[in-house]
C-alpha cells in the first residue's frame, strides 16, 4: 500500500494549510512517559499509540464531558504506558472500523472487538482482554420472548458488522441495523420499533442500571473474546501489545481497572460448557 502520493501531498498542502488536524478526541491524563520505544514499531505517529473505538459502547468506550472513557479506553492507556507511548484514543463508526485499521488510519482497535475467524482473515488479534456473553434483551413488559427459540421471525436490533448480526439472521429476516448497541437498546421500550436486541451482557446491564426499561432473557448465548486488533504486517507491535497486556494483568493494573468499573475481574469467568464464539 502506497501512501502520500504527490497528488495527496499537493492537495493537502495547497488547499488545507489553514485546516489543522482535528480527527482526535483528545485524551486526557497524558501519562507522560514517552521514550524512544515508538521508533521500533511501525506507528501512525512516532511515539504515539493511536487506537480506535466507536465511542458508542458504554460502559466500554464512550464520551463524557469531551473525554473518551470506559474499560477499553483505560486498557488502552495502561498498555500505552507499558509501551512507553503517548496514548491517543480516537473514535470512528463501527461499520468501517476494520477498513480504517487496514488503511492504517490508526495503529489498533481497542473497542471490544471479539475474535472471529472472519475478522482474523483481515487483522491480527491479541490475546483476549476480557470475556463477555452474548445476551438477548427485550422491553420490560415483553413476555413473548423468554428463550432464544422465541426469536423466530421477530424484529431484532443489532449493530451492523457486529458478532450479533450473524446470529440475529439465523432467527429472523427482520433485522434492524444500528451503529451503536446502546441506541438499539434505547429503541426497545418504544412501541413498535423492536422485539429484541442481541448485545453483550455488560452493555445491557449498564443500560438497565441507567434506568432504561428493559430486561435480559435467559443465560448468555455464548461467550465471546474481545481482543486488540492490529494490522497483519505489524507483528512486532502485536507481540509488544501481548506482552504489555500480560504485564498489566500480572501487576494488578488490570484487576484494578476492572473492579473499579464492574466490581469484578472480567477475565475471571468460568467458560466451561458455554459455547465460545469464533
Amino acid at each position, binding site marked *: *500500500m*502506497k*501512501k*502520500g*502520493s504527490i*497528488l*495527496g501531498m499537493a*492537495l*493537502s498542502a495547497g*488547499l*488545507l494549510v*489553514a*485546516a*489543522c*488536524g*482535528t*480527527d*482526535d*478526541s483528545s485524551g486526557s491524563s497524558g501519562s507522560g512517559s514517552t521514550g524512544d520505544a515508538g521508533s521500533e514499531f511501525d506507528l501512525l505517529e512516532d511515539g504515539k499509540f493511536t487506537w*480506535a473505538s466507536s*465511542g*458508542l*459502547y*458504554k460502559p466500554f468506550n*464512550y*464520551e*463524557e*464531558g*469531551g473525554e473518551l472513557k470506559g474499560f477499553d479506553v483505560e486498557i488502552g492507556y495502561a498498555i500505552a504506558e507499558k509501551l512507553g507511548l503517548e496514548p491517543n484514543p*480516537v*473514535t*470512528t*463508526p463501527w461499520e*468501517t472500523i476494520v*477498513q*480504517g485499521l487496514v*488503511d*492504517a*488510519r490508526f495503529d489498533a482497535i481497542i473497542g471490544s472487538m471479539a475474535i472471529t475467524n472472519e475478522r482474523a482473515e483481515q487483522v491480527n488479534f491479541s490475546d483476549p482482554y476480557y470475556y463477555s456473553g452474548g445476551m438477548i434483551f427485550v422491553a420490560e413488559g415483553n413476555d413473548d420472548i423468554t428463550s432464544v427459540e422465541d426469536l423466530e421471525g421477530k424484529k431484532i436490533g443489532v449493530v451492523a458488522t457486529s458478532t450479533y448480526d450473524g446470529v440475529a439472521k439465523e432467527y429472523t429476516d427482520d433485522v434492524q441495523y444500528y*451503529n*451503536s448497541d*446502546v*441506541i438499539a437498546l*434505547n429503541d426497545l421500550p418504544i412501541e413498535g420499533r423492536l422485539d429484541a436486541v442481541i448485545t453483550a451482557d455488560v452493555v445491557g446491564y449498564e*443500560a438497565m442500571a*441507567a*434506568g*432504561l426499561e428493559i430486561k435480559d432473557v435467559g443465560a448468555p448465548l455464548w461467550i465471546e473474546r474481545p481482543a486488540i486488533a492490529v494490522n497483519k504486517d505489524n507483528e512486532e507491535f502485536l507481540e509488544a501489545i501481548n506482552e504489555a497486556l500480560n504485564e498489566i494483568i500480572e501487576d494488578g493494573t488490570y484487576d484494578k481497572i476492572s473492579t473499579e468499573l464492574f466490581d469484578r475481574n472480567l477475565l475471571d469467568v468460568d467458560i466451561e460448557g458455554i459455547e465460545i464464539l469464533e
Partner: protein
Amino acid sequence: MPETFYTIVDVFTRTLSGFLDAAVVTLQLTAVGIVLGCLLGLFFALLKLSKSKPLQLIANIYITIIRGTPLIVQIVFLYYGIAEFVTLSNFQAGAIALGVHSGAYIAEIFRGAIQGIDKGQSEASSSLGMTKTQSMRRIIFPQALKRSIPPLGNQFIITLKDSSLVYVIGVAELFSLANREAAQSFKPFETYVVVGLYYLVLVMIFTYLLHLYEKKLDVDKD
C-alpha cells in the same frame, strides 16, 4: 414540559465545552468547503462559458457526476475508496468532499449570474476597445458577483449543514459528538435538540453576516 426544559438545559451545560470544540471543527470544515467550492465553482463556470467544446465537456462531466451522486457517497469514497492511492486524513477527505460537492452547484450559480448580465454590456465594452478578458474582469464579473450573492449565501448554509454528514468518517464535528453524547447519556431527545440548536444558531449568524454584506453591496439595486 418544564421538566424536559430542565433536562435540555442540563444536557446543554454538561456538553458545552465538548460542543464548542466540535462547533469549531464544523466551522473549519465549512470554511474549507466554501473556499474550495467557490474556486472550483468559478473555474468550472468559466470552462462552461468558454467557446471550446472540450472544456465545456469537462465542466459538464464534473457537474453531472457531482450533482448526480450523494455527498455521503463522495465523502466515503474520498476517505476509504481511494485510500490505496491517496491517503487523506478524515478532516481532509471531509473538507475536500464538501468543497467539490458545493463547487458543482456554485458553478451553476456563477454561470447563471454571468449569463444573466445583459449582452449590451459586453457589446458596449468591446466598442470601448476592451478585450474579452478585460470586459469580463472589469464589467461583467463584478456585476455577476453581486447578483450571485443571495444564491451563494443559500449554498453556504447548505454546506454548513451538510458538514454533519462527515460524521460517517469519524471527524469529531457537531453531529458525531451528538451521536456519542446521546448513546452515553441515554437522552436522545435532549441531545438532538441541543445539537439542532447549535446548527440553528450558526446558520442564523451566517444569515446575518450575509445580510450585512448584501446591504454593503446594495444587492437589491443593479
